[in-house]
C-alpha cells in the first residue's frame, strides 16, 4: 500500500498547441474582449430594465467607488491612466446631466455610451495575456528547475545536480480520477474547482494540469498576485485572467461573469477557486462563492440553447482537493480568521506577510527537506452535480443516464430563468462541498493536530476558542499515551468513514501508530517559526502556537469526529 503510487507519464491529449482552445482564444483576444464588453453591456441593461435613471445611479455609484478605491487602496499593478479615465467618466456624466434633455431614449443612449466605455475597459483589464511560447517556457523552467533542486538535495555526490532520479512527481502526488479527467477534457469543457489554502495553489494546479498532459486552463487569479512580478509572469503564462477583489461594483462583476461564461462557451477549460479566497480558518470550504460557479451553469444552458446537445457542448465540473502538511501563510490566515470572528476579543501580536523572499525560502526548504503534497482529483460531475461516466454521459444515483438538458427545459424547450439557475448554482455548490469532503486526503499531520487540539479543548471545556488560545504554555501539555490512544480512536473512525467512501487517507496512515505520530509531528506546520505541535523533553506533547494548532486541526472539521472527545 505504502509505495503503490505510480508516476505516470501522461502524453498530451492535444499535441498541437494550435488546437488548444486557450491558444485560439489568445489569437482572437481582441474580438473576444470586444464581444465580452458588448455582452456585459447588454446584461447590465437587462438587469436595470433599460431605465436611464437607474443606469445613471449605477454609473454614479461605480464612479464614486472607483475614485475612492484609487485614493484609498492603490496597487502597483494599477494602470497609470486610471485617474484620467474616471475623471472623463465624471465629466461625461455631468455633461449628460446638463446638456441632454428630452426623451428617455436619448438619455439612455447617452448613458449607455458611458457604460460601454466602462465595460470595454473592464473586459480589457480582465482578459488574460496568454502566450503559448511563454507557457512552454514556464513549464520547462518549473519542471527542470524543480527537478534539479530536488536531485541536488536528495541524491548525494558529484553530478547529483544532473541526476534524474527524482522528479517533481515524487513530491507532489496526483491521485484520483486522472484518466477520466484527461478523457473528458478531449470531449467537452472542464471546469476544475479546487480547494484553496495557499497562494501556491495557483502555480501548483497549473503544473498539475500540464503534467496530466492537458492544455492550459484559464482561471481567475486575484489581481493582488500580479503585484509580485515573478507571480505575474507565471500567471500570465498559465492563462490567468485577472480578478480584482477591490472592485465590487455591479458593472465589474457582470463583466467578469460574462468573461468567464464566454470563455467556457468558447471551449476553454477553466478553473475557479470556489471558496473565493484562501480558507482563512483551515476548514475545507463549506460555503462557496457562487458568482463564478453560476457562469458554468449559464454557459451550459447557453450551449443547449444553441443546440449543442452532444458531448462537445457539455461542461464537466471536477472537484479537486490539495492536501498539505504545511501551509506557508497559515499564521497570517488564522490571525485574519480569529480577528474577524473574535473582533475585540482577539488582538494580533504580529503581522506576517508573504513576500517573494519568504516564498523562495519555502520552496527551497520544500525541495531540500520533505513535505509531501497530494492532489486528489474527484469524479467529474455535470453542472447539476450528477456524476458523469467515461463517455461524458450524466448518471443518476441508480446509474441511469440523465439528459442534463432537461433541467433547463420547460414545456419542451430550453428556457432562460435566472432564478432557477440561481437555485441550481446553490445545489451545485453543495455538491462540490460534499465531494471535497469525500476526496479530502487525511495526512498524519492533520490527525495529530486534530487530536491534540480536541484533547486540549476537552480538558478546558468551559473555555471558548479565544480563551483557549491564550492558555499559558504549562496548561498545554498532553500525556503521550493518552494522546496516542485518542489518535487511535480518531484514526479508526476515519477508516470507518473511508470504508463508506466519505473521506480518503494517505498511505502513510497505514503504519504503526507510533510511526504515524512521529511522521505527523515531523510534518505538521514544519517550517513555521513556532511549531504547532512538538514533543517536549519528557516525551509529552505541547504546542508553541495554539492558533496554528487550531488551523491545522480544522482540516478534519466537518466529519463529526469531534464527537469522539
Amino acid at each position: 500500500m505504502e509505495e503503490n503510487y505510480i508516476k505516470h507519464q501522461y502524453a498530451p491529449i492535444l499535441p498541437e498547441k494550435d488546437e488548444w482552445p486557450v491558444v485560439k482564444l489568445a489569437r482572437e483576444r481582441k474580438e473576444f474582449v470586444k464581444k465580452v464588453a458588448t455582452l456585459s453591456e447588454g446584461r447590465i441593461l437587462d438587469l436595470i430594465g433599460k431605465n436611464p435613471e437607474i443606469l445613471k445611479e449605477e454609473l454614479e455609484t461605480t464612479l464614486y467607488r472607483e475614485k475612492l478605491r484609487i485614493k484609498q487602496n492603490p496597487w502597483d499593478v494599477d494602470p497609470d491612466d486610471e485617474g484620467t479615465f474616471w475623471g472623463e467618466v465624471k465629466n461625461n456624466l455631468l455633461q449628460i446631466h446638463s446638456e441632454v434633455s428630452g426623451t428617455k431614449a436619448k438619455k439612455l443612449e447617452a448613458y449607455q455610451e458611458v457604460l460601454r466605455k466602462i465595460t470595454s475597459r473592464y473586459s480589457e483589464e480582465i482578459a488574460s495575456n496568454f502566450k503559448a511560447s511563454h507557457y512552454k517556457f514556464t513549464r520547462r523552467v518549473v519542471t527542470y528547475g524543480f527537478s534539479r533542486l530536488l536531485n541536488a538535495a536528495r541524491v548525494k555526490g558529484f553530478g547529483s545536480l544532473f541526476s534524474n532520479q527524482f522528479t517533481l512527481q515524487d513530491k507532489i502526488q496526483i491521485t484520483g480520477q486522472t484518466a477520466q479527467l484527461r478523457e473528458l477534457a478531449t470531449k467537452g469543457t472542464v471546469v476544475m474547482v479546487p480547494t484553496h489554502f495557499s497562494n501556491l495553489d495557483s502555480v501548483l494546479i497549473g503544473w498539475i494540469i500540464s503534467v496530466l498532459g492537458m492544455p492550459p486552463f484559464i482561471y481567475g487569479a486575484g489581481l493582488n498576485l500580479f503585484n509580485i512580478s515573478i507571480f505575474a509572469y507565471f500567471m500570465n503564462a498559465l492563462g490567468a485572467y485577472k480578478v480584482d477583489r477591490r472592485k465590487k461594483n455591479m458593472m465589474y462583476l457582470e463583466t467578469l461573469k460574462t468573461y468567464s461564461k464566454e470563455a467556457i462557451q468558447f471551449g476553454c477549460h477553466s478553473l475557479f477557486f470556489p471558496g473565493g479566497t484562501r480558507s482563512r480558518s483551515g476548514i475545507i470550504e463549506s460555503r462557496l462563492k457562487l458568482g463564478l460557479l453560476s457562469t458554468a451553469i449559464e454557459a451550459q444552458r447557453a450551449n443547449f440553447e444553441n443546440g449543442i446537445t452532444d458531448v462537445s457542448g457539455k461542461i464537466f465540473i471536477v472537484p479537486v482537493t490539495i492536501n498539505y502538511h504545511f501551509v506557508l501563510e497559515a499564521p497570517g490566515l488564522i490571525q485574519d480568521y480569529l480577528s474577524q470572528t473574535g473582533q475585540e476579543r482577539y488582538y494580533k501580536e504580529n503581522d506576517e506577510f508573504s513576500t517573494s523572499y519568504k516564498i523562495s525560502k519555502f520552496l527551497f526548504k520544500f525541495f531540500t527537506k520533505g513535505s509531501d503534497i497530494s492532489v486528489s482529483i474527484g469524479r467529474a460531475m455535470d453542472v447539476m452535480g450528477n456524476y458523469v461516466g467515461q463517455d461524458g454521459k450524466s448518471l443518476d444515483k441508480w446509474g441511469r443516464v440523465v439528459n442534463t438538458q432537461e433541467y433547463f427545459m420547460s414545456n419542451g424547450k430550453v428556457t432562460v430563468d435566472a432564478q432557477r439557475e440561481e437555485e441550481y448554482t446553490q445545489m451545485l455548490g453543495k455538491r462540490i462541498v460534499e465531494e471535497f469532503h469525500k476526496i479530502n486526503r487525511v495526512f498524519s499531520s492533520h490527525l495529530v493536530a486534530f487530536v491534540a487540539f480536541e484533547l486540549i479543548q476537552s480538558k478546558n471545556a468551559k473555555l471558548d476558542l479565544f480563551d483557549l488560545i491564550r492558555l499559558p504554555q504549562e496548561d498545554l501539555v498532553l500525556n503521550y499515551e493518552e494522546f496516542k490512544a485518542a489518535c487511535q480512536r480518531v484514526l479508526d473512525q476515519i477508516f470507518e468513514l473511508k470504508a463508506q467512501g466519505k473521506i480518503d487517507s494517505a498511505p502513510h496512515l497505514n503504519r504503526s501508530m507510533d510511526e504515524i505520530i512521529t511522521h505527523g509531528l515531523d510534518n505538521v506546520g514544519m517550517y513555521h517559526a513556532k511549531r504547532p505541535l512538538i514533543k517536549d523533553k519528557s516525551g509529552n506533547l505541547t504546542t508553541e502556537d495554539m492558533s496554528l494548532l487550531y488551523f491545522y486541526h480544522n482540516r478534519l472539521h466537518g466529519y463529526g469526529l469531534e464527537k469522539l472527545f
Partner: protein
Amino acid sequence: MALKNSSKSQPIGVIGVGSFGTAIANMLAEKNEVMVYARKQEVVEEINTQHSASGKILNPKIRATFSPEELCASCGVLFFMIPSAAFLEVTRTFAPFLHPYHLVIHGTKGLAVQLADGEQWDTLKKLRRKQILTMSEVIVQETLAVRVGCLAGPNISKELSDGQPAATVIASKYNEVIQEGQRLLRSEKFQVYGNSDIIGVELSGVLKNIIAIAAGALAGLGLGENAKGLLISRGIVEMAHLSKALGGTASSVMGLAGIGDLVTTCNSPDSRNFTVGFRLAKGESLSQIMASMEEVAEGVNTIRIVDAFLKTAGIRAPITENLHRVLFEDLTIEEALQFLMKYPFSVDVDFV
C-alpha cells in the same frame, strides 16, 4: 412566456384520487385537461366511464390511467396528492419515469424517516435532522425531479368541492413552480399565494397536526374557547421554534399554511387528528383508537418523529413532549394539561 400555449395541449397530471386529490383535479379541470393516476384498474374504469371515483363526482374532462409511464410521458406538471403513508412507495413507482423537466407539486402533510441499513424505526429513540425528510425532500432524493413545490393551507376537501371561497399556498424554491401552480389553480373562488420557503410551509402543515390533536383533547375534556385560544397561540410558538430547528422560517408559520390551517383544523371536529385527541380525552387508549380508524391520523406519526428529533436538537417543545407521553407512555390527558399549565412559559412571543 410565449410557451403558455403549448402547455395547454398537455394535460396536468394528478396522482391520487382521495378526497383532496379529487377536489384538486376538479379545480384543475376547469381550465385544463387533466389526467389522474389510480392504482386499481376498476377505479380507472369508473373514472373513465362514469366520471366518478368511489362516489366522488369528477369533471368529465378528467381521464384516468393506471400507468405511471403514460402519465409522466403525457404531463409536464404533476400533482402528488397521496397520503403520507403511501408517499414513498408511490414516489418510487413514478421515479423511473420522472425527468428533470417535470414540475412536481405535492399536497401531502407528513414526514418520512430515513433509516440506515439495520436500523429499526421502532427501536430508535433519537433522530437527527438528516434522518427526517419532508415530502419534497423525498421527491428530490428518490427521483430526478428538482423543480418541486408543495401545496398547503386550510383546504377542507368538502368545502373546496362545494365551491366555497378558499385559498392555498404554493411553496417552492423555484419561481416558475409557484407561477405555474398559480396559473393552473387560481380562480374566482380560489386564491393562491406563493412562498419560497418550501421547508417552512411543509413543516407548518405537518406540525399543525400535533396541535390539532391537542385541540381535540381540549374539546374532549369539555373545555371552552379560552382554552382553545391559549392552545392556538402557544401552539404557534411551538410550531415556530420547531420549524426553525428543522430548517424552515418562523414567518411561514405566521402564514396561511401555519396559522390559517391551524385555526381551521382546530375547529373541525371531523378531522382525524382532532378525533384522536377527542377520544384520548374520553379515556380511550391509542391502540383502541387506531383499531377503529381506517387511516392513521398523521399527527400521531408526527409526534413520534418530532419527539425523537427533540432529543438531538436541544430544544423543548412542551405540547409535543406531553402528547408523546400521553400517546406512548402512561400519562393521562388531565396530567398533561396540568403539567402544561404549570410549565414556565414566561414570555408571550419570543420568536419574531
